[in-house]
């Protein structure tokens, strides 16, 4: 049975250009009011996926429905202007010959002029640009242009808003502020949105659920916590955060023996005794303890203000990372005591 509350449904979509397969069987759903994010390195197919949802590409097989209306399949193609989808483009694509207000009003088809003005003013206020209504795009800063692009896309009240790397043209400090702002605006207007980014921190701070894509395949579709702490594949585990992978052997239902000693916790996969596995170790799982018998050699360190990220060589010659308070300033080559503290053992078959 169709889930009534699912607004966007992508089922088993395949897309290839000439000989290259770009999207290989993508499936996911977004509920009404949810913010989703497609996260992946460049060239993984995430932008293609977004563009075919918008209506700029045809597909080889699969289905896309928006609000239970089939908009895209092998034989169906609803043009973008009929899909009620809004989009914020990477370069904003603002119309240079129109003012901010005219840009925002562009997609409004209300015949009553008063209503149009009310809507435009509402959006100007929402994105905090009431003062700049009469300005032209070239007179605005990058951050302001970005907000105009968002307001313009939101103006016709689209059922679904798509954002293509919306923050990539902004400098870092502005980016952090705007990610939070954009999330607030989307939530306030109860907009269902799908964003594409290669930046995991943007994904974490904006999205309710994240799909990690590699090589045209969505490897995991989950919330930020699970993507980080319970990655389902090795690719996801290494792409998200600074994890290290070390070899281990399962001893019992909840114990793995590895370069960090015997670790106890819940196994992410059911594994029998004696099974060889790859174990994910996050830097915050490795604590610094001068009294620990387990020593590791510092081979690289990067100072990050409140803490230092140490790259360590274990006695087993494997590499792992440790995030340590920056008061503990050790030299390269020094042997320091470490103590692993892991609740969930994230393991992958060898």
């Amino acid at each position, binding site marked *: 049975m169709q889930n009534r509350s699912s607004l966007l449904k992508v089922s088993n979509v395949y897309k290839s250009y000439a000989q290259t397969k770009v999207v290989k069987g993508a499936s996911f759903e977004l509920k009404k009011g949810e913010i989703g994010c497609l996260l992946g390195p460049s060239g993984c197919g995430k932008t293609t996926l977004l563009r075919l949802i918008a209506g700029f590409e045809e597909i080889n097989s699969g289905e896309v429905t928006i609000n239970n209306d089939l908009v895209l399949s092998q034989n169906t193609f609803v043009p*973008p202007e009929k899909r009620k*989808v809004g989009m914020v483009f990477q370069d904003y*694509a603002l119309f240079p*010959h129109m003012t901010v207000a005219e840009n925002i009003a562009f997609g409004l*088809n209300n015949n009553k002029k008063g209503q149009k003005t009310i809507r435009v003013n509402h959006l100007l206020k929402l994105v905090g640009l009431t003062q700049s209504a009469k300005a032209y795009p070239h007179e605005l800063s990058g951050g302001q242009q970005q907000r105009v692009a968002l307001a313009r896309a939101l103006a016709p009240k689209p059922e679904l808003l798509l954002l293509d*790397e919306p923050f990539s043209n902004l400098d870092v400090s502005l980016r952090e502020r705007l990610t939070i702002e954009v999330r607030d605006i989307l939530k306030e207007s109860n907009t269902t949105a799908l964003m594409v980014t290669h930046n995991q921190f943007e994904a974490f701070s904006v999205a309710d659920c994240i799909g990690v894509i590699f090589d045209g395949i969505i490897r995991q579709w989950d919330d930020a916590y699970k993507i980080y702490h319970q990655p389902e594949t090795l690719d996801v585990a290494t792409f998200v955060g600074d994890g290290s992978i070390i070899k281990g052997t399962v001893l019992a239902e909840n114990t793995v023996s590895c370069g960090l000693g015997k670790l106890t916790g819940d196994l992410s996969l059911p594994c029998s005794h004696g099974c060889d596995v790859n174990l994910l170790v996050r830097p915050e799982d490795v604590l610094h303890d001068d009294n620990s018998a387990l020593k590791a050699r510092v081979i690289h360190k990067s100072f990050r203000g409140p803490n230092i990220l140490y790259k360590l060589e274990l006695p087993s010659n494997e590499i792992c990372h440790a995030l340590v308070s920056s008061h503990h300033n050790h030299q390269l080559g020094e042997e320091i005591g470490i103590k692993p503290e892991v609740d969930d053992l994230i393991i992958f078959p060898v």
Partner: protein
Amino acid sequence: MLTRKYNKSKGPWRLITWTFSFLVIIPVITIFSSFLYPEKEIWQHLVATVLSELVINTVLLVGGVACFTLLIGVTLGWFTGVCDFYGKRFFSWALALPMALPAYVMAFIFLGVMDFSGPVQGFIKTIPGFESTVFEVRSTPFVIIVIGLTLYPYVYLLSRASFMNQGRGVIEAARTLGISPIKAFFKVALPISRPWIITGLMLVLMETLADFGAVSVFNYDTLTTAIYKSWFGFFSLDAAAQLSSFLVFFAFAFLFIDAIYKSRMRYYDSSKGGKVKTNIKLTGWKSFAVFSFCTVILLIAFVIPVSQLILWNIEVITDGEGVELFDHISKTLLLGGMAAVVICLVSILLAYAQRIDGSKVTKILTKISTIGYALPGTVLAIGIAIPVIWFDKLIQEISLQLFAINTGPIIQGSIAVMLIAYLIRFLAVGFGAVNSAMQNIKPSLDDAASTLGKTRIQILYKIHFPLLQKGILTALILALVDVMKEMPITLMIRPFGWDTLAVKIFELTSEGEWVRAAQPAFYLVLVGIIPVLILIKKMEK
């Protein structure tokens, strides 16, 4: 400690820019001041008889060519810039080729083919029932079409580049906002491209306004032909100058519009950031329709006229009725070569003046120095002839008074005057090429070279020259070809015996000798293709 004086005195550079901008101003002032000494009889005669007709003809011609080139140029620019259809890659460059045909060449080929005695009407007369049908092809619509076919590439190339630069970003944005593709073209793509389209259009209008050769072939009286006739018919330079002032007024209006839209380009440039490269795919009948449209334009604007030109050449040569052209070719090359070198040198000087003294005054003066392209050749000829004659008379007077020697005309009818006229008319072409190369030499390159221990001379020799080389070569070629094709200036102020190919074409076509005119025209088209090829190569980068 030894400090090098880095910013040398800017005085000499200022002098250069002042000199060359003054050179352009002289003919303009001359033209307008002609109203101070009105030749009442001739002027009144003109007003009473033909003036209104001349102005109406000129306005009709310019307006018609504007509509024609806009229609053809923008649609072709859109199809080849943004759409995918069969043959797109080929047409993208091939549709620029008609630029190689001077309008006067196109004009006489058209008449040769289409006139009463030509093959087309001859064929129609063989059809039963049409034996006595006669089409008048020497009429306004056909002049418009002929000139429009050689000039539409300006609008085509600029609008195409602009449509391509927009990418599909803005169109796609419009579509996600619920606008259909056709509506998006008119509401978004076209307005954003407006500065480029208008810039192309203004070039077209200036060229149309300046056209002398094509309208002469058609016996279509405009202000330019009237200027020529009032000098060589009535022997009245002042009446010619007064007529010229109308043209200057129009030309400056076009320049002004052009400047307004050029200043907007920067803001309308949406090429920054991610560009979407996918195109609108045309399939089935749409693809075929666009393909046919492009084919028809290419056929009538280039393939058929050039084939006809070649056929006539073969005909003339096999009949042994060829014209001896060796002298014309050598004179054309010599004159073009000298002018090209002068234009190039001045371009280099001005480009350096702007680099070294980047003040606002210098920039404005450089702009003024290069506005000569807007002045029609006939106007320029008059605007230069008058001060030259005045100068000669002055010298003659002085030497008679002081030394009792009659010097006669000194600079009148000399090569130097022609070179100055060419310089004024075509400086923009050369300067554009040299200056764009100059702007690629960032000041930091000089700084980097000098921190690596190189002297000013070494920098000039090892950095500037290699980087400018290509721009200078382009400037030389473009100027050479433009001067070779130039007709009215050469016709009106050439020294005795300096007949170029263009002059020969004028002589032959005024006697209706289309077939023999094909001979000199063939060479001009051949060299005319070179700059188009340069342009195409640049376009493909």
